[in-house]
């Protein structure tokens, strides 16, 4: 047993290194999409719009082609926007769990998903990599509620006591079973992997009226 302890510690250090690298790569991808690719797209669109003025109105074919190009640029632009909408460079790694979660919740349009939240999280309850994982789990659950379950209302609670941090996310959408049938594997596998790292437990259930309730508990020691 004693021989296993250094090995476990090594595995933990390795896992954290992987997590750190993953987050750095994610931030790079985000920067590439938001700060670089979209700038190119808007520059392309502006040039196409400038080109339009040189094509006489009566030339149908070139004008139709330009119209298609403009449509494709807008579609690409909106696609990137959809993917990166709730992504933010400010994460628990640089501003802490409480601030990052609050910021994320504030960014969500209340007309799309009305959110009621309560966050009782003691500072530094977990190391920053674990906090990052908890944040990503919550982010995934809320993204699922917005994108796939058709929910209008979501309630999120983060509660802590001496033993554990407990999180409950409940929405009024189509329910976990229906959601799961339609969208197998949508982020759930990743959530389960993160839960293994955090040594926590997670459960999904559905209320009588159909919404999804996800509860997870993370031991503090």
């Amino acid at each position: 047993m004693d021989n296993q302890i250094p090995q476990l510690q090594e595995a933990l250090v390795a896992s954290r290194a992987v997590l750190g690298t993953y987050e750095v790569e994610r931030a790079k991808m985000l920067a590439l999409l938001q700060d670089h690719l979209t700038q190119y797209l808007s520059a392309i669109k502006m040039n196409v719009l400038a080109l339009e003025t040189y094509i006489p109105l009566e030339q149908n074919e070139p004008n139709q082609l330009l119209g298609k190009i403009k449509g494709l640029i807008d579609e690409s632009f909106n696609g990137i926007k959809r993917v990166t909408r709730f992504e933010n460079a400010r994460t628990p790694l640089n501003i802490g769990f409480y601030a990052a979660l609050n910021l994320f919740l504030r960014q969500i349009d209340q007309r799309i998903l009305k959110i009621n939240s309560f966050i009782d999280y003691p500072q530094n309850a977990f190391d920053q990599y674990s906090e990052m994982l908890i944040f990503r789990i919550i982010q995934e659950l809320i993204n699922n509620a917005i994108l796939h379950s058709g929910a209008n209302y979501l309630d999120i609670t983060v509660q802590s006591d001496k033993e554990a941090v407990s999180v409950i996310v409940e929405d009024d959408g189509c329910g976990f079973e229906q959601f799961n049938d339609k969208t197998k594997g949508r982020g759930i596998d990743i959530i389960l992997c993160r839960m293994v790292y955090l040594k926590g437990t997670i459960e999904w259930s559905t209320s009588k009226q159909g919404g999804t309730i996800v509860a997870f508990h993370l031991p503090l020691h």
Partner: protein
Amino acid sequence: MVSNRIKIAIVDDHQIVIDGIVALLNGHQELEVVAMDTSAQNMLLRMADLKVDLLLTDIMMPEMNGHDFATAVRKKYPETKILALSMSGQGELVDGMINQADINGYVLKNISKQELLNAIQKIASGGIYFSEEVLNELAAFSQTRKEEEKVQLTVREKEIIQLMEKEYSNKQIADELFISERTVETHRKNIFRKTSTNSVLGLIKYAYQHKIIQGLN
């Protein structure tokens, strides 16, 4: 002879975007691009020698962000109108630009040519211009800020209150709802917090008062 053309300065950390805007405005005799820069700090200095009517500026810039830049321009060159041109129309960002930096307009970079020309004309003549998407984001942000704190019990919490009223233990509630006792305990804490009660009796009273539990006829 004094020119009536609108003198425009453009700041964006991406030269390709500046070139795009210039190409877009090219051929419009009423507009004159008098300065372009990829650095906000440089532009702040250069503007001292130029009489800029309208500044077109990006928001997300590495060395000096659009918010700080617009605030500095407003202070140093109060006559210059500011139109923010950004990839992001996030409510919080726009709100800061309007309330702190006092800008005159905000549009997104995927704007159409006609809308950009309209925005420039309108702002140069003393008006304001915010594109529809930006206004939508701003409205959503204001709504979030105004959101009142009120008790909102979820469906599951109401289910648990109903079982608590039947004197079910945590274990019985957990079995009934196929969840763990730990989850029931977390729900109970939430329910007590939300209803500002601290005993089952007080909670049941609250539930009857608020028609969460219906009394027998």
